[in-house]
């Protein structure tokens, strides 16, 4: 009985495959490319992280020594702490801005298209260019744009990126400015699926903006917000180019992130073995987060 069922299943699997053969063939190139440039390197990084490398050649199996070396680095805990700070600041700064911008655009009667376009614009600027522009804004001394403004209103120049407590939030502000267009579009899409009848009914009943916001929009958007928050955590956890370009991880390691440490291991010290060990650590952590993301995604799309 059981074997018959299995056979049936097998046959149906084969049928499904046969039925979708052109789909399989079409996806083959992407699978091949994914294998070549994503899965294979990931697998290799796992493998090589267990070896002592000379350049990129494995010379001796060392077990978990690279992991131990990375974790016992005296700066490791500070770096992990910084990375968490990046994530927290990105939630504080990066989450509400696109959300409220989306709600505002959604409420607009005219000019929606223009604002959508204008707010998406920074996304198409390359990250490094964005970072350089913001670096100019934050520049210490009289040359910086923010300081020029301070000077104009009569307050002396302040230190920005070289201020240890400010440096991470400032980097996050810059990267939020660049990235929030994408999040905004997703919020807008979700807002547009709000039941308009409900919305109109509330309006007719004389419910104000905040009432509609609290009782209709927010409950509807809860899932999207949670998902995007998760995406943001995963994305910001890997932050690398922004601190690299804007602060180099300084002052004295105050803006060093795990991603940047990894970059330094590989490209400044040529210690690819440690770089891969740290990469594996981040990968496992992110896989965990991604798993939660998918769980949430499934829950909310049901």
């Amino acid at each position, binding site marked *: 009985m059981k074997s018959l069922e299995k056979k049936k299943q097998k046959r149906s699997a084969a049928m499904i495959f046969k039925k979708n053969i*052109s*789909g399989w*063939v*079409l996806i*083959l*190139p992407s699978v*091949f*490319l994914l294998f070549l440039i994503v899965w294979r390197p990931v697998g290799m990084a796992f493998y090589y992280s267990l070896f*002592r490398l*000379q*350049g*990129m*050649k494995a010379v001796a199996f060392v077990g978990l020594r690279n992991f131990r*070396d990375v974790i*016992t*680095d*005296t*700066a490791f805990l500070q770096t992990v702490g910084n990375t968490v700070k990046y994530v927290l600041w990105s939630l504080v700064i990066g989450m509400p801005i696109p959300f409220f911008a989306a709600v505002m655009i959604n409420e607009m009667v005219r000019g929606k298209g223009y604002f959508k376009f204008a707010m998406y614009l920074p996304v198409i600027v390359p990250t490094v260019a964005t970072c350089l522009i913001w670096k100019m804004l934050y*520049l*210490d*001394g*009289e*040359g*910086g744009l923010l300081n020029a403004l301070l000077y104009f209103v009569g307050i002396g*120049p302040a*230190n920005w*990126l*070289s*201020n*240890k407590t400010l440096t991470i939030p400032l980097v996050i502000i810059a990267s939020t400015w660049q990235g929030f267009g994408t999040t905004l579009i997703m919020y807008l899409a979700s807002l547009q699926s709000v039941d308009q009848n409900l919305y109109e009914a509330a309006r007719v009943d004389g419910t104000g903006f905040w009432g509609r916001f609290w009782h209709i929009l927010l409950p509807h958007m809860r899932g999207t917000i949670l998902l995007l928050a998760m995406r943001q955590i995963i994305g910001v956890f890997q932050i690398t180019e922004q601190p690299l370009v804007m*602060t*180099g*991880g*300084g*002052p*004295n*390691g105050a803006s060093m992130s795990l991603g940047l440490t990894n970059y*330094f291991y590989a*490209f*400044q*010290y*040529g210690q*690819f073995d440690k770089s891969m060990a740290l990469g594996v650590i981040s990968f496992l952590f992110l896989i965990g987060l991604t798993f939660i993301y998918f769980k949430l995604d499934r829950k909310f799309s049901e």
Partner: protein
Amino acid sequence: MKKRLSMLLAAALCIFMAAGCGTSTTGGNGKVALEVGNWPDATRPESLEKYENWKTQFEEQNPDIEISTNTYGFEVKTFVAKAVARQLPDLLQNLPFTEVKSVAKNGYAADITEAAKKSGILDAINPDLIEMCSGEDGKLYTLPRVAYMQGLMINKKLFEQAGLVNADGTVMVPETFDELADFAVKIKEKTGVSGFTMPTTGNHGGWILLNIAWNYGVEFEEQNDDGTWKATFDTPEFHEALQFLHDLKWEKGVLPDNNVIDATEMRMLLGSDQTAMIIGNSDWCSHLAQKCGMDVGNLAMAKMPAGPGGRYSQLGGSLFMFSPDLTEEQIEAGFKWIDFTGYGPELNEDTYRDTCEVYANENNFVFPKELFSIWTNKERSAKVEEIASEYANVDIKDFENYNLDGIELRSEPAACAQELYSVLDGVIQEIMTNKNADIPALSKKAQDDFQANHLDKMN
């Protein structure tokens, strides 16, 4: 129909991909092939034309050699990947001296000891430079193309505005670090511009700090009998050097407000009259002229000022490196090419003249004599001087002080130099951004970190 179309599309995709994976090969013609790197690209038309002409002439003179070209030059982010994939040009012309030891250890460069002995090049090189060009195993892996020592780079315009001028019109030069501080104060008072600038990021801060600290009598590391290394820099001398920088920033106020910069940004400040002095070397001159818009007449150079612990300066250079798979004939062909282009022990007057001419036209520095000689041959130096003076666009008086008298040359620290610089970067950043930095504690932590994170974990 739809199905067939999608199948067709998929097949086409596969074919495209397969085509993309293929590599092209060129047939041999019995000639010795040599691929020369750092070939100029179209952004420097004059240099490109010069090199193309050289290629033609060289192949005429050496019918058994065929030169192919590659614009790749050393770049930190891509070098190792290219080296591992064996995609470096056969002859790379700008390997920084900082990379030689790791390049040799990792097998990215050919051992050219025998070939250099045979051709006589080894005997002709300034003995000071051999160590720099060799691996830890004592074998020769590179040849010097340009050599330099660290010193002071001075913006003449700002010195003149501050009245720091000698009777003969040249600028005054600080002989000690205390004098450097005095000069910086005067410049700040008279011009409002920072007198001196330190880089703090990209490992450049650590590199410059190392050069300053040597002069305060600091030794950074020493090797134990069992071959392991010990960090030794947490000393009163090092604290004194750090205090000097701290005072420049917080007591005297002569450093720029923005301190989170690397050497490239620092050069920009010098080139655009926003700082009067930096520590640097003659290899930066062309960058100053071509990328920072500095007028060639606005630069003066001096040797490293003396500190309480002596007067030391770091030796550096840009080197020729051969790819490890080359045959003996190819390496010989490379030597011939180096000779031909005017960088060998025997000066090729024609090509050297070409170089001077292009430099002069490109608004690059042409010095009327060698600032640092790679070869021991005095006649060669005399010939260089004779040709260069025809094209010179700077007054040698501004560079007279940039010489070896009283200077003891030092090489880069042998173990984990880049890592050391990175740790020191953090120390300088702390001092530059925190007025109340606890210098002894900072120094102790830096030494402990360097020992634990790098020296103790050396492979």
